[in-house]
């Protein structure tokens, strides 16, 4: 080009070798943001999309109007779910490294988003997760054995070998199937919620996507349909700052919060500290009440950080400072809840260590059981004929023929 480019390109605050830089992050002190009535008209509560709802302060106390006043027992359960999620993730990561599963995605650093939300919802609310919401299954009681078997594509795999690891689903638990195509679940959740409204039921749909995925057309369709039909849905953008190698500024975060898209479409938007278990729980309760009473949908932006690499296929050190997470101003969700419980006098380091050990053992035991149902490389395995089932409700003639061909091929004929 003859002339110099005038194109604006979003800045990434820190790359490998740079010092971590979170000065771009707009924070609010814990307790600062007001808590309007859940039935408030959306237009009067735009401030929720700009501030940051936080409950836990730096002294590990719960403060301000969003304090959800949960039982210590409930908080301990939340801590347990987060720790189990993390123990499970850690183990699967190591297992992938050892070659026993092909692929894995951790939710490290984002456990509060799934766990606190699932705990604030009813079991009959339908969840449309992304691939980083394994905590939902944990809260709803899915044995991690089942999740492991899925990752192994073994004879107990809920997906019957048809999906990549982590692409779980659970009809009984009201958790929808995960697609590899980003964001498609977002408008589907709105359709589900519309159906609930049409049927006169008061169940909600809740869906999660990453901030990078908010660029997809599905994001727009979800917000638009939710707005037009006032669907009983909670739509969550999990802003963990990164989309593989791409900083959130490239998804529009440089200009405005993701929560602010909500008011643009005429629906409530709330920006919440995604690493603050109490704040996430409180905001979810608020949005659920709002949706259930017919006051409309809510877009929640969870501000958090993807502490792990994108997946086991990724190496985050290529594109961001190694110590980025250590410097993230919102800390770690597990540590923060733990410290709060200790501050309440309801927890201790010793109990914590014991719990971690117990969960590790549970995970190890589950893994042992899981491999007994087969692995990629040995043990019992699924019949490849399963590939021809469930394409349609009934297998049509051409697939029957192809199955026969495949069986002949396998038999060396």
């Amino acid at each position, binding site marked *: 080009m003859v002339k110099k480019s005038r194109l604006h390109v979003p800045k990434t605050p820190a790359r490998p070798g740079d010092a971590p830089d979170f000065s771009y992050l707009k924070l609010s002190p814990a307790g600062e943001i007001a808590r309007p009535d859940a039935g408030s008209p959306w237009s009067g509560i735009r401030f929720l999309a700009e501030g940051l709802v936080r409950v836990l302060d730096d002294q590990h106390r719960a403060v301000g109007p969003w304090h959800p006043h949960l039982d210590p027992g409930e908080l301990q359960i939340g801590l347990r779910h987060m720790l189990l999620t993390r123990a499970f993730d850690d183990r699967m990561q190591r297992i992938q490294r050892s070659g026993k599963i092909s692929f894995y995605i951790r939710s490290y650093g984002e456990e509060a988003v799934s766990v606190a939300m699932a705990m604030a919802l009813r079991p009959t609310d339908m969840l449309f997760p992304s691939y980083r919401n394994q905590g939902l299954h944990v809260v709803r009681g899915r044995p991690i054995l089942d999740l492991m078997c899925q990752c192994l594509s073994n004879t107990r795999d809920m*997906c019957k070998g048809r999906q990549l690891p982590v692409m779980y689903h659970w009809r009984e638990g009201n958790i929808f199937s995960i697609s590899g195509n980003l964001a498609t679940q977002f408008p589907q959740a709105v359709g589900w919620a519309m159906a609930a409204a049409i049927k006169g039921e008061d169940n909600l749909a809740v869906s999660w996507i990453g901030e990078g995925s908010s660029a997809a057309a599905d994001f727009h369709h979800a917000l638009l349909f939710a707005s037009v039909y006032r669907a009983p849905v909670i739509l969550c953008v999990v802003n963990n700052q990164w989309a593989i190698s791409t900083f959130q500024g490239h998804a529009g975060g440089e200009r405005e919060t993701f929560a602010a898209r909500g008011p643009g479409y005429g629906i409530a938007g709330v920006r919440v500290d995604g690493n603050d278990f109490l704040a996430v729980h409180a905001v979810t309760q608020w949005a659920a009440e709002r949706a259930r009473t017919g006051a409309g949908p809510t877009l929640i932006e969870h501000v958090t950080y993807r502490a792990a690499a994108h997946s086991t296929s990724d190496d985050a050190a290529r594109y961001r400072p190694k110590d980025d997470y250590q410097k993230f101003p919102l800390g770690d969700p597990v540590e923060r809840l733990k410290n709060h419980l200790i501050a309440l006098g309801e927890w201790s380091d010793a109990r914590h260590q014991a719990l971690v050990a117990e969960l590790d053992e549970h995970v190890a035991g589950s893994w042992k059981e899981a491999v007994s149902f087969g692995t990629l490389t040995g043990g019992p395995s699924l019949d490849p004929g399963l590939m021809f*089932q469930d394409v349609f409700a009934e297998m049509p003639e051409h697939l029957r023929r192809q199955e026969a061909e495949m069986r002949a091929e396998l038999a060396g004929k």
Partner: protein
Amino acid sequence: MAQMNMIQALNSAMDIKLGQDPSVVVLGEDVGFFGGVFRVTDGLQRKYGESRVMDTPIAEGGIIAAAIGMAVNGLRPVAEIQFADYIYPGYDQIVSELARIRYRSAGEFKAPVTVRTPCGGGIRGGQTHSQSPEALFAHVAGLRVVMPSNPHDAKGLLIAAIEDDDPVIYFEPKRIYNGPFDGDPAKPAVPWSTHPKGEVPEGHFTVPIGKAEIARSGNDLTIVTYGTMVHVSDAAAKGLGLDAEIIDVRTMVPLDADTICASVARTGRCVIVHEATRFAGFGAELSATLQENCFWNLEAPILRVAGWDTPYPHAFEWEYFPGQARVAKALKAVMEAS
């Protein structure tokens, strides 16, 4: 039995299902108060209310996605895409989601959505009101793909589609909404009341998805076709005085290969006719399947008659559209080949 055109037949199918089954809902652009730009949903909102027959935003991707979500929540949505030419913004939700939800969830979830969409040319609609994109759906595992050629089948297939537990892409050849069309735009329009397939049962009935129909039996050769081209082919064969067997495919997926192959194996000669552009069109699959199965019976190459491989050209519609002359030429070539 009643006299119906295709619009009335389709309307009757939805009316019956909306009345019988509270889980059936209809959604799409202008389908509610207005009753659809082709009036296929006329009167349904008045009868079943705004929550069962819904006007939607102009977002085909959103319409399909919402329909999927509704279906997962137990409804049976019938989504209208105003013209098949506008289905592409919904393509990801159809291909990556609708077609695979049952598969990827190992049968735990299903999405029994019917996507109705008017297709085809011959109405001076130009590039974006004339396309026949059926091949782009037939290649996608997990979708049923249907196109009726008359009011009777339109109603029976639509009821079957709505009742089907799998997603169905339902193409409506709009050129024959009001009457059969033999490809000659100069001839006065003929209403469906002049055609035996304009007789349609008033109540519930189905035409099975996955079954072709022998629209006319014959011995000289087999014409495999669907939609508007059933009528054009019939006229072309009659014009040549040929005793052609005409097979109306009706369902592209799953294809009734047995019926089609049996006919071609018997006649030894075959012409495939469709409106869509030729290259990599659905005719290619028909030709390949027939060749594989009937090779030793073939007495002449199987020929394809189709739209040319260009975008739909407004002013040259009748030079583009496969009319009787183009079909006749292929019929002659196949009959004369030896």
